[in-house]
């Protein structure tokens, strides 16, 4: 049972943050494609804004990989409590990534429109987008500590 919960956590870490990133990139990408009809010369600036919501998917993937490593260390034999820790440990990066990537995509889309009108302001759009990403970073940090910290998995595994 523990293994099932742990695998569910890993699945959510990759899938939800990935869905969020795909959604964010999709939103920003569509706006960029539209903006390029008028200002194709800004492609480089648009590309950065389109790529930005992709980071959350990477955070989720990195956490999932670390958790899989831990499962491997445990030879895929877990108690129910260990499974719960894996599951809830993965949720911050999964849900933080999902939400922040979707909203970051919208901020990036607005940033692309701003860049289309005022190319010199593109850095300010990046900063706005970075502010949204901070909450995915917080999720990543907590998921990471669930993997490592004394009260987290590591401690339980040692027991």
């Amino acid at each position, binding site marked *: 049972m523990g293994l099932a919960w742990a695998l569910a956590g890993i699945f959510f870490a990759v899938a939800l943050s990935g869905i969020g990133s795909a959604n964010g990139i999709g939103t920003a990408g569509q706006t960029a494609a539209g903006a390029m009809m008028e200002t194709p010369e800004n492609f480089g600036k648009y590309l*950065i804004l389109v*790529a930005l919501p992709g*980071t959350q998917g990477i955070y989720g993937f990195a956490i999932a*990989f670390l958790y899989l*490593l831990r499962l491997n260390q445990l030879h895929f034999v877990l108690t129910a409590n260990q499974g719960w820790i894996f599951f809830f440990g993965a949720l911050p990066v999964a849900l933080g990534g999902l939400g922040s990537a979707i909203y970051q995509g919208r901020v990036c889309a607005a940033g692309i429109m701003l860049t289309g009108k005022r190319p010199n302001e593109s*850095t300010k759009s990046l*900063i706005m987008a970075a502010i949204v990403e901070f909450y995915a*970073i917080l999720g*990543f940090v907590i998921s*990471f500590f669930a993997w490592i910290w004394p009260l987290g998995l590591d401690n339980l595994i040692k027991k």
Partner: protein
Amino acid sequence: MAVKPFKKIEIIGLKTDKTKLISSLKRLGLVQITNLQSNNAINITHYDEILDKLNRIYDNLKPISEKPENPFIGERVITADYEKDVLKENELSDLYEKIRKHLNNMRERSTNIHTLEHKILKLQIVKDLEVPLGKIEDSPFTKKRIMIIPYGQLENFNEIIKNTSNLYAKKITQVKNQISFLIIYPTIMEEELVEKFSKIDKEPYEITGEPYAPKPLIEKYEEEIENNSQGLENEKDILGKYLKYYNRVKISIDYYKNELEKITIGNNLETTEKTFYIEGWVPRDKMNKVDEYLKKTNILYVNFREPLKNEKVPIEYKNAPFINFYESITDMYDRPNYSELDPTPLISLFFTFFFGFCLTDAGYGLIIVIFMSFIIFNKKTKRILGNSIKIFYVFFFSGIAAMFMGAITGGFFGITLPQAVAKYVPINLSIDNLNNSAIPFLKFAIYLGAIHVAFGFLLNMIKEIKRKNIFMGIMQNLPNLIIIYSSIKLTASLIGAEVNTPLWLTLFGISMILNVIFSAPESKGIKRILKGAYNAFFGFTGLMGDILSYMRLFALGLATGILIFVINTVAGILIDLLGIPGYIFAVLLLIVGHIINILLNSLGAFVHSLRLQFVEFFQKFFEGGGKPYSPLRETFKFTIIEERKEK
């Protein structure tokens, strides 16, 4: 840390010398004129006409010119003395007249081709008709009509044919999803049939009086297109002979634009009947140079004075090499105003270090350094990029910082360090050691944040002291510095470190009380205390939030390291699974994976390091609002002047 000091310059001269002086000032490129009046109506039609001709020639020669070889130079022309290459007005008129004839011919032939192509497209649907369209004429008792039926309406059409007597229909051609029919019917049925067919016939096919059947007509048109295309190519070849003027045309555009600007400025100066007056800004260190230069001209009066308190002085940075590369980072937010400190020196240190912190891999840093070296150590790119080269220097130094952080954390493309080396690494972030190193690495990021934020308050205090606002400057900033330090000490005591808790608690309390008293000086009495308490409380929580925001450095640094580990592990798995062929896939994966990882993480490192400057740091002291110093100077879109010959 300060911006360049400026002097106000005042010049009076004779109107007859006006254009000559403006030319000289443009060449000198040091005086920013401020007293231009934009409402003077001037006649610039002459220069507009010249520029119009030049732009037309440029627009037509550009498509047939060779593509630029060097992407950094692009379309620009390198010249030693560009006035020599400028097309004189009579030369330009001759060239324009000659080219215009060919341009008209080309336009005519292009229009012909377009029209003929349209006609062919229209004939395709009836191409199997064996009689000329012109011969399909109505007789007194019958009507003839060509109908274009969409494939989806064919059934309805057949239904009408079947149910209507005295109606003759013959299929002509089927093209894509349409079929054409020739239909013949008695004139008396006209009204009835028009109504029946109105729902399925898209639009009536126009029968023209051409004396040829469609097929020979299409062939005839195709022949005409061929002739016109040939003619067009010939015209292009002829136009190609004028490509030798292409660079001169581009240089001339720059020249005449500058001439036009001179005339515009001259007409917008304040004048009396015989004199003109110029007011502007000159950097203090260039004052003597400008003075000497002006003395050689015929001006009547020149004076330099200190800026007045309410005057808006332009801003020019005054930074040493290395720091000046980071001016572009400050400019991304705003330029400091004349009465505040320039934060660029601190940005140069913190931004670079933060970027390195986010990558934490010496291998990645090395790749960035090598790549940037190709750009910044190439004389040609350096000259062509001009000021834009600064950002490449920023990445170069940030790459060095990443190498430094890689050395501290033992990161080099994720390769596991030998035990003998690993024990000397201060914070070994290898996956095996993350249990031990993650907390010190997080602490490192938080301490760095505390120092960065503290510098923000320190700069604010210095700024206020410089403005003679000494008491409030100290009272509004020093308590925050103490709060930051005492908070760190008290947090340490909470997790068991040996700290003089009563001392730090007292200092923390006094600082909070000072914040209550001095954070709302504009209010009076109890209102001041209540507002002060509100500001002090939320100021403290905001401050803690700001410092915790530096946790992102830890997260990004860690994410880069984990992804490097993932790429290397998957490459290892490929080798284990596939044997010898696995090496090929593994090498491909390593190259592509690491390149993508460098690009994505550099983007993250750049954006988040910027954010920490603009949101957490600048908010403590920075006002901005300065306008860049933009002296009157010659501007060039196409011309790169290699070596200016002073005249």
